[in-house]
């Protein structure tokens, strides 16, 4: 079995850091690529809600440095089995590559005691989200059809 306690994902986006920041902190943007989740990140708190308003997970924001760095706790409230596991941590890093593009790195770690969450978000999980974010920022096309 693969060790999934620290997972890293990186994608190159043809967008400005400000556009990427808005796309990861505004529910009106996240619902278009993040499995339909309305994700809101303020300087204090991270909230994720389903299209019907259901709690999909929330937690404290640990670092908030627009438009470069966002760190928040992750709780998988969208699934009752996963919700029992301890919170993990997600770090978003946006680097301007200087040619109209950004490198976005997502690190999901502190998953040592949350093996089910680790499996659930691995591979296609984060991969699909970041692929959808890239498509949204570069073409304007949503990857999740609005309900």
């Amino acid at each position: 079995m693969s060790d999934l306690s620290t997972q890293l994902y990186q994608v190159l986006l043809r967008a400005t850091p400000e556009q990427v920041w808005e796309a990861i902190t505004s529910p009106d943007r996240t619902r278009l690529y993040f499995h339909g989740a309305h994700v809101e990140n303020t300087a204090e708190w991270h909230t994720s809600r389903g299209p019907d308003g259901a709690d999909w997970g929330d937690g404290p924001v640990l670092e908030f440095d627009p438009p470069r760095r966002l760190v928040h706790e992750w709780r998988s409230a969208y699934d009752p089995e996963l919700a029992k596991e301890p919170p993990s941590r997600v770090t978003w890093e946006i680097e301007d590559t200087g040619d109209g593009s950004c490198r976005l790195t997502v690190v999901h770690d502190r998953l040592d005691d949350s093996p089910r969450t680790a499996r659930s978000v691995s591979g296609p999980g984060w991969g699909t989200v970041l692929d959808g974010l890239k498509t949204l920022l570069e073409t304007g096309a949503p990857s999740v059809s609005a309900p």
Partner: protein
Amino acid sequence: MDDDRVFKALADPTRRALLDRLFARDGRTLGELEEGVAMTRFGVMKHLRVLEDAGLVVTRRSGREKLHFLNPVPIRRIHDRWIDKYTEGPASFLAGLQRSFEEEDRSE
């Protein structure tokens, strides 16, 4: 084109083996990746460089160590762009049939 770099990086058995090792356990140092590979340190570094250029491997510093992580996003994109459309329908039926025959062979 990014895809070209990914295909090129994947078209080498040593590089695929390095990705498999990172898949089994992520976040390894160069020293750990050298172990069990019949190759000089310089050779392994060269291969890692190609994987990094393709975005398949990303390095991060942790204290004094430089750790290598597998980045699955480029493979995901290739899967969505090149694999999905060819595996739907009859091709996937035939691949499934082939798999079930092979499994029967093994169980005999």
